[in-house]
């Protein structure tokens, strides 16, 4: 396969404190002076740098579609800017064969006060089309954007969707050999998104190369021949879409888990000093509280419908008769989702002394996606608290289904039609969204 884009040993370094540019007038002046005397490559001492990208090697074949995924700030967009030539690499080389069009900011250079028609000409010329080519393609550009009725209105009167559609339409009619796309299929309505995807498929068919940056993993998987995952400025994985996306998702889940664990630990530290989070006589003390998943591991992130076991250790400092243990789940905005205790459930604990453990296995955590808090408590039968931990344990519920409310009863949708009789509806194959 012929190579369309090749990147060798690419690194990009940025100076920190971007907004200040150069920190002081003096150092900047010295720098200007220094470079004027031919020492431009030497940097003033004290400048802080970080690498947005490091040692990237990448080849995009002719006719290949490559997807780039990664979290915000991982360096994806910087890579695209380097590919397009908007930015220059600190080290390494970017070689692009053929004409390139970068869809990074659609409608960059649109002037709000002048008409769509005039903007097509200006933007087209900025993107490298000639006046004649633009005249030829003008009608096609307008109809692809679906703006026939508005083309003579000033661009400031356009909705953001119209704006982006026009920008996309111009950029795609540049007829490039290599197309760079940054997160743009997520804009515009469904109809236009389909049009864009059709157009891209057409591109693919004619043997053109596409590099696509997106957070929409479903789209990436569907569309790309190969996926590159960038993490902290380096290529973390590369290969078949499914495999790379799975690795990426697993990594994200693990990171998120660690984040929640850290948050909860922080809460646990605060709780000691915070009266609003813990109160009671402490004749019985609740110690270590755990949330354990179906896999037997302590966790802070659960899938909707997963089992969860709430476990706590306790210590009764004296002989305590008929203690009552309770748990409650609050949504992060303070709505009580569920609360119960051993007294309400008419369960009997005759008496306790010394150390022990109590666990409450919840067979299914049928909560919709969101952040929740767990309360645990032990108190007298009349409610006088021994030890109450309020909003001290945080957990999150994740779901691929974006239903709403609090509680997700286990359910099905059963459709009955004359033709097919009774069918239980099945979800479409979906991934990553």
């Amino acid at each position, binding site marked *: 396969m012929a190579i369309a884009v090749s990147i060798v040993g690419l690194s990009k370094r*940025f*100076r920190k404190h971007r907004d200040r*540019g150069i920190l002081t*007038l003096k150092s900047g002046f010295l720098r200007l002076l220094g*470079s004027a005397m031919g020492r431009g490559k030497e940097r003033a001492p004290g400048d802080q740098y970080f690498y947005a990208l490091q040692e990237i090697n990448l080849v995009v074949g002719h006719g290949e579609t490559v997807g780039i995924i990664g979290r915000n700030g991982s360096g994806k967009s910087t890579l695209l800017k380097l590919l397009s030539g908007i930015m220059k690499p600190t080290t390494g080389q970017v070689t692009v064969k053929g004409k390139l069009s970068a869809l*990074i*900011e659609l409608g960059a*250079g649109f*002037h709000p006060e002048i008409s769509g028609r005039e903007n097509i000409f*200006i933007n087209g010329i900025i993107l490298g089309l000639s006046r004649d080519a633009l005249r030829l393609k003008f009608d096609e550009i307008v109809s692809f954007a679906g703006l026939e009725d508005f083309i003579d209105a000033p661009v400031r009167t356009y909705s953001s969707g119209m704006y982006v559609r026009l920008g996309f339409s111009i950029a795609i009619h540049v007829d490039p050999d290599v197309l760079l796309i940054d997160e743009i299929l997520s804009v515009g309505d469904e109809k236009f998104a389909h049009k864009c995807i059709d157009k891209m498929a057409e591109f693919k068919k004619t043997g053109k190369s596409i590099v696509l940056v997106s957070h929409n993993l479903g789209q990436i998987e569907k569309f790309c021949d190969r996926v590159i995952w960038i993490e902290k400025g380096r290529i973390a994985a590369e290969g078949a879409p499914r495999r790379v996306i799975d690795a990426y998702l697993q990594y994200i889940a693990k990171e998120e888990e660690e984040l929640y664990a850290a948050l909860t630990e922080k809460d646990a530290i605060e709780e000691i000093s915070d009266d609003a989070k813990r109160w009671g006589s402490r004749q019985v003390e609740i110690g270590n509280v755990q949330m354990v998943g179906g896999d037997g591991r302590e966790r802070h992130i659960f899938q909707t419908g997963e089992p969860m076991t709430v476990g706590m250790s306790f210590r009764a400092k004296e002989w305590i008769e008929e203690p009552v243990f309770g748990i409650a789940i609050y949504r992060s905005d303070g709505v009580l989702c569920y609360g119960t205790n051993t007294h309400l459930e008419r369960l009997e604990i005759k008496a306790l002394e010394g150390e022990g453990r109590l666990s409450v296995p919840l067979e299914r955590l049928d909560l919709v996606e969101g952040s929740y808090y767990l309360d645990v408590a032990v108190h007298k039968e009349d409610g006088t608290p021994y030890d109450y931990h309020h909003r001290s344990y945080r957990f999150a519920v994740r779901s691929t289904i974006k239903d709403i409310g609090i509680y997700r009863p286990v359910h099905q949708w059963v459709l009955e039609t004359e033709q097919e009789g009774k069918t239980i509806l099945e979800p479409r194959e979906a991934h990553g969204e």
Partner: protein
Amino acid sequence: MIRDILKLKRHGMLIRVLVARDLKARYRGSVLGFLWSFLNPLCLMLVYALVFSFYLRTGTDKYAAFLCSGLLPWIWFQSSLMEGTLSIVGGSNLVSKALFPAEVLPLVPVLANLVHFLLGLPILALFLGIYKIVPSWLVVFLPVLLLIQLLLTVGFVLFLATMNVFYRDTQHIVANLLTLWFFLSPIVYESEHVPAAFQWTLKLNPMAYLTRGYQEMFYYHTLHAGYAGFALGLVVLLFLSVALCLGSYWMFLRYKDEFVELV
């Protein structure tokens, strides 16, 4: 660098389109539209004419005609510097989001304001007409003066636009210096009225040469410095302007790659 200058020629179409955009967009939505290119300098002219003919009398004969011949080119110079300084920072979405030759941006306001200047020339004709002044044959040198001023302006603008990317202070400094520069140039007063002790400032001021040049063509009809002196002055100024242009462009190219990170 020579290669870059040749490339600039290729961007000719881009420059033309952007200048046209600038001109079109400027008065879009105003009732009088392009007439403002004419009315704005006229109003400024009338203000200065009012102040310096009646309140603070300069004693210059046919003052409006004198003022006009120096003020119109100055407006071109000043607007170009003000807008040019902001051009790269202001064109950030082109510089940082599209594959766009940044050197085009500072040139656009200079050329757009040249067009405004040319559109303002009827004002000069109007006042010359009122005072029944016929421009002297020296007007044949007008294109030379315009060329020198163009090169000088481009030289300053490239430098200032680059500086402004790194220090946004530049735009404020430029605005204030331009006010000073305006009053130190013999535009509202005649060069002869400047005390002998300060005549040397006029000798160091390129805009004083240019202003004087325009005034001699349209207003004085004589060359105070003599023909040889006038020609020599122009040649030196042309040479300096070219040098400034090249120097600024060299600096611009040197820092161009950093713009995308800073705007």
